[in-house]
């Protein structure tokens, strides 16, 4: 990639949302007044949420025309995938921006249901739905003018790296703005970038490293609590209070936002290096803490972990080993 400095070589930047809530796109605005620096340094050549573009414009671009693409959101349907591939082809640096692109994120929770279940829920079951003729979206639809085609709705939600090669991951739900800026500026100044495929804008150490709550080695759990079930003293480690906190298995970098807000970490920042499946790791750690050797008692304690998949894979299901419900 180009590191030699020309006179104000304006960076061409694209931001796209796949299956996402839009929070990531918005988070870009969180840079506040710094936005001017950004705009000064870069042209936004593609940003559906902000500016009106047509896919055609991109398709027409020569390959590698875009310098930096921040792709947020997961891959849910054929459109997401198409754009992902398209952008990959047109951009020098492809960044998986935010938890959804990184690991599948919240949309990834859909992987605990099949496509059919989802459709049933969405098009028939939801309380607000009135759909007497049981109409479902029709991917191919013939009309006099011709053939309409909707994107295919995949059975799975996938993280970005499952469909295209990703250069960097910028985790978070949404990513911490400071982190974004650091990365952005690094690119603008053409300073040395970390090796490809690595996570940027997050620390190798996990939450606990930053977390100010008091931690001891007395991690023995007799009963699990949901956050609302305990009277949090605000300073004892959540886990030691019996609340499952993904902190230990989740990268730092967010500035322990949730925990500071007296909510246990959910793990949006994803696992530290060389830890393929944070959910499994955390499961292992938490289970180890169960303070009993008795079959029955253990079962009883585990009863309180109502939804292991949702708890330990809140953000990482599509990126985990067992990617979806089978």
């Amino acid at each position, binding site marked *: 990639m180009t590191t030699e400095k020309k006179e104000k070589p304006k960076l061409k930047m694209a931001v796209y949302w796949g299956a996402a809530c839009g929070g990531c796109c918005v988070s870009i605005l969180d840079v506040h007044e710094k936005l001017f620096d950004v705009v000064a340094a870069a042209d936004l050549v593609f940003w559906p949420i902000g500016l009106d573009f047509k896919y055609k414009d991109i398709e027409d671009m020569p390959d590698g025309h875009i310098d930096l693409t921040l792709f947020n959101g997961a891959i849910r*349907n*054929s459109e997401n*995938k*198409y754009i992902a*591939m*398209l952008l990959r*082809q047109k951009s020098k640096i492809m960044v998986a921006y935010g938890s959804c692109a990184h690991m599948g994120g919240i949309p990834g929770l859909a992987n*605990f249901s099949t*496509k059919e279940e989802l459709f049933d829920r969405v098009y028939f079951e939801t309380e607000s739905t009135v759909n007497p003729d049981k109409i479902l979206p029709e*991917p191919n639809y013939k009309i006099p003018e011709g053939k309409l085609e909707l994107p*295919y*709705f*995949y*059975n*799975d939600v*996938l993280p970005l790296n*499952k*469909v*295209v*090669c990703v250069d960097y991951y910028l985790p978070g739900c949404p990513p911490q703005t400071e982190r974004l800026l650091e990365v952005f500026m690094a690119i603008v100044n053409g300073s040395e970038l970390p090796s490809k495929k690595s996570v940027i804008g997050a620390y190798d150490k996990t939450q606990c490293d930053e977390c100010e709550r008091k931690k001891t080695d007395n991690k023995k759990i007799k009963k699990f609590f949901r956050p609302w079930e305990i009277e949090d003293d605000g300073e004892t480690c959540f886990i030691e209070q019996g609340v499952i906190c993904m902190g230990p298995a989740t990268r730092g970098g967010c500035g322990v936002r949730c925990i500071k807000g007296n909510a246990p970490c959910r793990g949006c920042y994803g696992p530290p290096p060389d830890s*393929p*499946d944070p959910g*499994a*790791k955390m*499961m*292992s750690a*938490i*289970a*180890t803490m*169960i303070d*009993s*050797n008795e*079959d029955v008692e*253990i*079962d009883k304690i*585990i009863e309180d*972990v109502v*939804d*292991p*998949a949702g708890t*330990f894979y809140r953000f990482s299901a599509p990126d*985990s*080993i*067992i*990617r*979806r*419900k*089978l």
Partner: protein
Amino acid sequence: MSNEPKIVSFLCNWCSYTGADLAGTSRMKYAPNIRIIRVMCSGRVEPTFVLKAFREGADGVLICGCHPGDCHYHEGNYKCLRRYKLLKKYIKQMGIDEKRLRLEWISASEGKQFAELANEMAETMKDLGPANIKEKLDLFKKPKSINENENVEKEKSEAI
């Protein structure tokens, strides 16, 4: 082997692996479905390993450790038991039949019990039929270029 169920088993070095060896030295015959991975202690067995085994196409996973109280490392097998129970809950949620994951205590002298267990496990897997987890989770290869459409058909079938 292809159509035969595959069972990955994690055996602790001191009791279960020795037990399995004993089954061998005593020439006890059992079903060839089981494939053994040696760990020092059942306490080393992580959910990650089990999930990985399933992901890679195992139809069943068997974890064996020393009998409670006999652990060479005092309590490793209890740690294993706790993880096992939570993990079982998880895989159930993920639509993997509970019976596909099993934890048993096999002491160094229980070659016979191991052989029986191996057969039993193989039987269960045959009854349950193939898990096809690998098949279900391998989607399509990452396309090299945008024009590459070889997988589209597959995608469609995947999709609808």
